[in-house]
């Protein structure tokens, strides 16, 4: 809202206030600028240097022509998309249940959901290792009950990594979705029901469209986190699951190749930017098509 025709004294006050707020934000801007932008610039410079310190595009040629890079890229995207898909499938109904529960019940359930977030990721990841390994609890239950004859390979592979990542991401996906659903006016749901909508139709035509913003935010968070995930694939992947983050670490620790690692890092940045742009575009498209969505 803009204020027109204000008293000049008030306008001066408002200007002073804006300058003051800007001044308050400077430390944060400084840290973001210094701690985020400088290293990125440094990495970009590094990606064009040989180990001897001369300028080259050789790092790019080497990294981009390697099959390992592309399979790492595919693994990264597979892990992110897989985590996202399961988060949407599990998290959306959970958010719906939380949003429609009575306040006391909702708080209790929320505490359960949030509990894992207060535990170190390392502890949780090793916890999964205990549960999922060959002699672990899950396999003991499966073979003991006769559901499977042989223990299933649940860990040191893609499945195990995915389970660990989903476990980490689900609460973070849930929060914005839950917030969006809780903000939906209960009378909208009642109105839809009074006009004849079944529960399924209410969810499809009212609840989901109105919480799409939250689902988008949750999905963005899942992507941003999972694209750079390191600990979970390192522990639960057993060396067989190698996303870009692991390739970067290995390039550095095994080969001390800063140039190639920098190129991989830039690849990760580009991937994130691409996905960011895709999300923004999808969101804008949704906003434009939001009208005229009646046919149930």
């Amino acid at each position, binding site marked *: 809202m803009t204020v027109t025709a204000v008293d000049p004294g008030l306008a001066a006050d408002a200007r002073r206030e804006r300058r003051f707020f800007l001044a308050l934000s400077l430390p944060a801007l400084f840290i973001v600028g210094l701690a985020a932008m400088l290293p990125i610039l440094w990495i970009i410079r590094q990606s064009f240097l040989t180990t001897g310190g001369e300028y080259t595009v050789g790092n790019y040629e080497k990294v981009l022509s390697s099959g390992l890079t592309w399979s790492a890229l595919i693994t990264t995207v597979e892990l992110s998309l897989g985590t996202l898909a399961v988060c949407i499938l599990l998290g959306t109904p959970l958010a719906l249940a939380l949003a429609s529960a009575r306040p006391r019940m909702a708080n209790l359930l929320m505490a359960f959901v949030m509990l894992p977030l207060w535990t170190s990721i390392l502890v949780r990841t090793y916890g999964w290792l205990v549960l999922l390994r060959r002699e672990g609890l899950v396999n003991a239950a499966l073979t003991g009950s006769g559901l499977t004859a042989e223990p299933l390979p649940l860990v040191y592979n893609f499945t195990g990594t995915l389970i660990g990542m989903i476990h980490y991401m689900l609460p973070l996906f849930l929060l914005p979705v839950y917030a969006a659903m809780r903000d939906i006016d209960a009378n909208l749901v009642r*109105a839809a029901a009074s*006009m004849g909508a079944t529960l399924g139709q209410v969810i499809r035509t009212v609840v989901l469209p109105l919480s799409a913003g939250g689902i988008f935010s949750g999905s963005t968070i899942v992507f941003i986190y999972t694209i750079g995930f390191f600990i979970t694939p390192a522990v639960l992947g057993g060396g067989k699951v190698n996303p870009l983050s692991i390739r970067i670490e290995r390039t550095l620790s095994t080969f001390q190749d800063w140039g190639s690692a920098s190129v991989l890092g830039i690849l990760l940045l580009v991937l994130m930017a691409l996905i960011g742009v895709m999300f923004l575009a999808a969101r804008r498209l949704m906003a434009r098509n939001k009208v*005229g969505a*009646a046919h149930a």
Partner: protein
Amino acid sequence: MKSLPITIDSVRKAYGSYVALDDVSLDVQAGEFLTLLGPSGSGKTTLLMALAGFVRPDSGKLLLGNRDITRLAPNKRDIGIVFQNYALFPHMNVLANVEYPLALRKTPKAQARQQALDTLARVKLEGLAKRNIAALSGGQRQRVALARAIVFEPRVMLMDEPLSALDRNLRETMQYEIRRLHDDLGITTIYVTHDQREALTMSDRVAVMNSGRIQQIDTPQQIYDRPSTRFVAEFMGEANILAPGSARTIDGGDASRETLMIRAESFHLDAKLVGRDGVALEARLCAKAFRGENWLLTLALDDGQEVLVCIPAALASGCAELAAGQRVTAYAPAEKVHAIPGAIA
């Protein structure tokens, strides 16, 4: 469109120790416009929500025509509802909102569109079909909510304080339009409000509610002139409740062994305007106020009871000269004096 009568039979609803509906029974005739009137917390909205299916009564029965709907799911009741905050879908435009109930009923698209456009025309919103809900004024939203509630030809309509968010002038226009719409469609309507003037203006009958009970159901005139309880008398306007023995007849006799209700505007200061069978009150003038169309006088009886007297400006030639402390006699015609049955003063 065939509308249905509604029967509410001994409905009770309690939330813990708080009784929201205390054995409420009410018959609404087919095509009637009935208003539930009461202060907040009187149970009127709870009763409406029970009819809509969003509140399940602890006991009692709700009938739509001959059909028992007490335990029927809300989406199977075929009742049009206008919510207090309109409850329009913000992610759909005007047309999509109005088409929504038709889409649920699998009405063919072209027919649904035509029906929605016709209904929008009926509520004077033609031309706004493609508008976003956020771009509408309060009055326009109200009309969309109305259109959406009637487009699927429900046989009963419920309205929960639909005009409370509008400013006064618009509210009066909409009162008239809602009533006109009701008369056109002949749809049985239950309307909830806490505004007594709105209830009197719009309704065939008014049910006054307080603390979960219906105090009185009657025509607006009866409710206003012949309240059956002290609560109804005082809720409906400037009522003077007089203890037994406070008034005498104009010719000097004792007027009452009962509690009397006389509206402020029923008084005259001139005995000639009243006739021999009215009542008279001897009092002292405490205060007077000129309100444009009338004078409001505050009188004190000898036993200390205060009485409000409202004299239309056209008949109040002497009011300007009255001074505080002066003795006056206020007269009311017999037909405007109402004995409240069983009231304890």
